């Protein structure tokens, strides 16, 4: 007797489900349910922290910004109407807060660049770098990453924001436009300028 094959239906999380799940989570947070607040932070903290780090280039600043972002999110939850995805809405807050912080830095004439070595001091060596004998390939990767990181941090904030949202976070042009509150055409032109600028910097470094 041939073994019967059965197909177990798997529930696929479609976009409307995700949107309604976000909406329900937001409603619970707005009602003051601490578990929901904790879940919202836990679900999005990696995304927020990494975006903050890529935009600001400094781990400590990124950590502070992450806290600020979530506080802002909870304070303005009542303004979330669900037109955009919760993730895009949070991205927008991150970019705005990072932009404000960047302006404050500029006023304080603080260096906006963080070298890889500084990063290593605060967060330890990269996993590959912990190898006792660092192979040439790893060393080369390390140097390349360092150059890309520096080139990225040298970009103007608006260009850095679009390149990070596109290349690292993988947002579509429309999502980037919503996150930055600009037109899609502006996103395209900023991306083109950012890529050209990065390419030139990497060629000359």
């Amino acid at each position, binding site marked *: 007797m041939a073994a019967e094959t059965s197909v177990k239906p798997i529930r696929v999380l479609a976009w409307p489900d995700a949107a309604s799940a976000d909406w329900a989570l937001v409603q619970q947070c707005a009602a003051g349910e*601490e578990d929901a*607040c904790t879940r919202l932070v836990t679900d999005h903290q990696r995304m927020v922290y990494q975006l903050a780090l890529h935009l600001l280039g400094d781990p400590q600043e990124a950590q502070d910004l*992450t*806290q600020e972002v979530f506080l802002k999110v909870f304070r303005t939850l009542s303004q979330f109407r669900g037109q955009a995805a919760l993730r895009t809405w949070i991205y927008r807050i991150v970019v705005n807060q990072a932009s404000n912080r960047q302006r404050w830095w500029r006023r304080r004439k603080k260096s906006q660049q963080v070298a890889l070595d500084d990063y290593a001091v605060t967060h330890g060596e*990269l996993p590959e770098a912990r190898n006792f004998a660092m192979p040439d390939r790893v060393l080369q990767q390390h140097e*390349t*990453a360092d150059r890309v990181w520096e080139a990225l941090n040298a970009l103007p904030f608006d260009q850095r924001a679009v390149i990070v949202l596109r290349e690292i976070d993988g947002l579509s042009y429309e999502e980037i436009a919503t996150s930055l509150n600009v037109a899609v055409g502006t996103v395209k032109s900023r*991306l083109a300028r950012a890529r050209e600028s990065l390419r030139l910097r*990497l060629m000359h470094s």
Partner: protein
Amino acid sequence: MISADCDLVRDDLDAFADGELRGGDLRRVAQHLEGCRSCADELDVRQSLGGLIRETATQYRPAVPRGLASGVVARIRAESAQSWRSVLRRSTEDWHWAIVGGGAVSATFVSALFCVALLIFGTATPAADSISTLGKNLRESPGAIYAEVSRQGASRQEVMLVQLETSAAPSGVYPAVFTRGDEERALVNALAETLASTGPLHDLSRLPADARRRAEWLLTTIARLRAAEPLVGPFGALQVHRLHLVTNTEVTAKGLTP
């Protein structure tokens, strides 16, 4: 070799690499790339730049700091506890304060009602030291005699109030328009003295019997004398209708002995 087509395609090369082209634009760029080595190389450069950035980001992916969620939630909880809504909610949880507040409001309401009732149903008689009485008294001089007069044969609507000249009346305040003989002046002075001795009066019937008889006799004598010699002023002979005598001016104030 870069052609005019290449220029057009390169404007869309980023969007192509990012998967943002649709329909005809997508087909046009894809077809061009199949036959153009230069643009295909350019696409490779852009894609590898993106790959480089993602690879770097992968290497620079630090762990999320521990305790972030609990720290944020703790701050939110603290802020929420400080909000005015929370303060209000906590204060209303204790009914003791609600009772105290309600009692205070009720007491204020009852007091206001009582004051309003006093104002509406209280005595309407002005006090002796009220402002209106004070002003009225200050305008009159003790001993002055006023007469309501009219011309002979005139109607009652033409009655005038004039002050008779007596020794007690201050001169210059109301210029006398009539001059009388010494006999009438003496009679008027005696009348004023009789009435003023008993304080402010408005009615002869309230006088003691002997003072009332004296005042009536004096008034009768004055009337007889006036009938014999009518008043003569700038308007000719005048008929006297009523006499008013200011007997006293009393000004008192709270806390002071008059």
